[in-house]
């Protein structure tokens, strides 16, 4: 409710801004933003974190892009980028792009269709030994891609195994930049070459990331800014103080939690702050191959005790959103309606009733207040993971489960999960594109590397393929909701909430457009400018 109000306020502010007299954009200035950590590398195709996309997306271009002027990423709002136009053949399995001519890489080489082929051959795994990347975490996105072919220097065709409505959406993500064939992966990880509005100057670990305006950018008149400077500031307190003191023009994305917001607004009266969902959800990983959670009844008890509202109150003063596998409406395009959600296990508004059911099951299995089931809750040893894990441990006590926190070093977290060396784990999952294909294929499809729990339901796999091939959005939604329902009933990965956080910027900074159903797709900075 509170978030809905915040969202409404944002819309009103945006409308008010739109109604005010148009300002002429001014060129120049350096945008200063604190970065929360050292990005693991500058190679977007190899990484899966906002820490890489936020600074480096501006170095690259995509074939297509989610319209940066729209608040919601949706298939209806995709605009050309390196591709000038695109079309499907009659079978809807051949997607052909006409490419922009005269575009140059930052090192002066011409951009051609070969670069597009080279990029997708590498990310889809067609090239066994690619030189431009050494790992591809989103290979599963391209499971339906059969081949990429070029026709001359300025036309490229994606050959799909079957029609896939979401394919264009995936290409529009910040995670689908086009790489250059002639640049080695080591360079792409350290000082990447792109065709985007900004050129990379340097990335000094623990110090700074510097980008400068690309004077040869194909979009004439853009970008407005001369440069972007991102200082690496791992301490959140220092980052916030830096913004308050005017050292930075903008906070790192979603870096201002609700408890901090009041202080920021008090200290910096001219700050503009916007609350929005990050499409990063907290969820529980369950090892269903080992006792005690190999027992479906105990898995059900787990969902019986979850009080999503309490999680939201404690973690975000009630702003986090309750949702199933997809981000809920009105922010999410695909999530199921509230009434339907309330009927799913783990989302019931009557917590007392569902906990009583859980207690009854536990008693039947021989557990009780004097003989609780002892388990461990593993999680990464990072506050944003630990905090919900601690709340979960408290809630598990209500159904006679005595859990102990097992903090795991990030370096071995996924190894431990992959080896099934855990009972339950508290996890965070960020979804790059608010589209069922991205989320379901990545996290729930039996063949995915990122399906950490190894959840394997042939029926769900079939439904995932079915919704993916469905061209009609309304029909597709019905299948998506059915999948969400099955995932909840199977206790595949119980969702405990979607994070909502604030991003703030100086009122002199104009042209900032944040999107409400993904944090990964709008970091070009080409429309940002300073009114001073």
């Amino acid at each position, binding site marked *: 409710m509170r978030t809905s109000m915040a969202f409404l306020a944002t819309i009103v502010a945006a409308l008010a801004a739109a109604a005010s007299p148009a300002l002429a954009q001014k060129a120049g200035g350096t945008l200063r933003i604190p970065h929360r950590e050292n990005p693991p590398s500058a190679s977007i195709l190899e990484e899966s974190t906002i820490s890489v996309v936020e600074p480096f997306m501006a170095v690259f271009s995509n074939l297509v892009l989610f319209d940066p002027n729209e608040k919601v990423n949706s298939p209806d709002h995709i605009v050309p980028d390196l591709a000038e136009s695109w079309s499907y053949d009659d079978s809807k399995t051949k997607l052909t792009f006409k490419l922009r001519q005269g575009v140059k890489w930052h090192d002066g080489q011409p951009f051609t269709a070969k670069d597009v082929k080279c990029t997708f051959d590498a990310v889809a795994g067609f090239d066994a030994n690619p030189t431009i990347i*050494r790992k591809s975490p989103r290979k599963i996105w391209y499971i339906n891609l059969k081949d990429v072919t070029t026709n001359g220097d300025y036309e490229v065709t994606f050959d799909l195994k079957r029609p896939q409505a979401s394919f264009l959406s995936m290409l529009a993500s910040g995670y689908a930049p086009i790489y250059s064939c002639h640049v080695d992966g080591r360079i792409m990880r350290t000082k990447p070459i792109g065709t985007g509005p900004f050129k990379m100057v340097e990335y000094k*670990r623990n*110090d700074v990331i510097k980008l400068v305006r690309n004077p040869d950018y194909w979009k004439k008149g853009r970008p407005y800014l001369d440069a972007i400077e991102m200082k690496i500031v791992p301490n959140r307190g*220092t980052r916030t103080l830096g913004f308050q003191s*005017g*050292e930075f023009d903008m906070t790192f994305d979603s870096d201002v939690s609700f408890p901090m917001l009041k202080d920021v607004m008090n200290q910096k009266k001219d700050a503009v702050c916007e609350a929005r969902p990050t499409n990063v959800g907290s969820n529980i990983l369950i090892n269903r191959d080992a006792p005690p959670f190999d027992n479906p009844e105990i898995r059900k008890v787990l969902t019986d005790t979850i009080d999503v509202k309490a999680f939201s109150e404690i973690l975000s003063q009630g702003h986090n959103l309750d949702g199933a596998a997809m981000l809920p409406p009105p922010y999410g395009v695909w999530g199921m309606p509230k009434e339907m959600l309330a009927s799913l296990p783990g989302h019931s508004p009557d917590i007392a009733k569902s906990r009583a059911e859980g207690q009854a099951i536990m008693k039947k299995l021989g557990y009780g207040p004097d003989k609780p089931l002892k388990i461990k809750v593993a999680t990464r040893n990072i506050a944003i993971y630990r905090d919900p894990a601690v709340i979960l441990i408290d809630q598990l006590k209500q159904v006679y489960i005595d859990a102990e926190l097992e903090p795991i070093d*990030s370096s*071995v977290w996924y190894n431990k999960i992959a080896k099934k060396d855990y009972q339950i784990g508290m996890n965070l999952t960020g979804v790059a594109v608010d589209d069922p294909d991205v989320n379901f294929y990545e996290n729930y499809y039996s063949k995915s590397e*990122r399906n950490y729990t190894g959840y394997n339901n042939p029926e769900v796999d079939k439904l995932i393929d079915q919704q993916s091939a469905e061209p009609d959005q309304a029909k597709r939604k019905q299948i998506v909701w059915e999948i969400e329902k099955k995932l909840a009933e199977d206790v595949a990965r119980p969702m405990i909430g979607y994070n909502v956080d604030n991003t703030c910027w100086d009122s002199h900074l104009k042209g900032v457009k944040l999107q409400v159903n993904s944090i990964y797709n709008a970091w070009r900075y080409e429309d940002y400018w300073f009114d001073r």
Partner: protein
Amino acid sequence: MGAYLVRRLLLMAVTLIGISILIFIMLRLVPGNIADILVNASGMSDEQDKARIVHELGLDKPLAEQYWQWVDGLAHGDLGYAYVSERPAWEEIAPRIPISAKLAGMAIFFAVLIGVPLGVASAVRQNTGLDYLLRVFSLSGLSFPSFWLGLLVLMASVQWFGKIPIYDSDAHGFFNQVSMLALPAIVVGFRSSALIMRLTRSSMLEVLRQDYVRTARSKGATNASVNYNHALRNALLPVVTVIGIEAAFLVGGLIVTETVFNIPGIARFLVEAILWRDYPIVQNLVMLIAFVVVMVNFLVDMAYMVLDPRIKFAD
């Protein structure tokens, strides 16, 4: 003296070799390696990708070969490549040394500048109001955690001056550098100054009760002359030892301060390299720190001779 110096230098070499073996083994005993972390950072667990990275970085070679490759490179001035940044390790380490050295130097300078005179004042005015005040000051220095003090200083800076001393690598010139590093140096040096002050005080109190001090007073020497020429010089021996140890331990204090004040020095860099299991960076940095500690110890021993001519190092 000559033979002593040779013995000391040989011992230093043996110590450094021992440390190199220790750090090499300890790093490999820690669970997880860079390949795990690089793949984990992408939120996936692909054994094929991992194997490729392991091979590319030479981590599939026998440990003895890896160790020899490292020390052989070290002996020839080749520190290898950083795993994470994929740049020569020396290029990553070198620019950070002067940053931390300046900060540590300023912190020690501040600690000595504050600690020694206040320690003397506290001792010569024992059990007076000033003494009590200074003892409270020194106790606070020992009890305040650096990160807390650092954040407090930053908040005060925003409140009073409307800005914070965030490190700027483009700031040049003596004045700019000093003004940028002064606050963090004070935060780091505060604890050391408290320790030095307490030690100077107790050491001075002990020396002030010695017979030769009484003799000096009976011969009519002024208070200042007794305190500074006769007592302080002898009281300084344990203080110098502590300053040496503090200088070595300062790296630990720098980790927190470099993080809070966002200074891209070697301490913060080392912590991050450990988290990433970036062996070339960790190994070479630890060796560098070990070398500094060994050298500081050596210089402290040499300083004894200057402070107390009675001390001679036998051949």
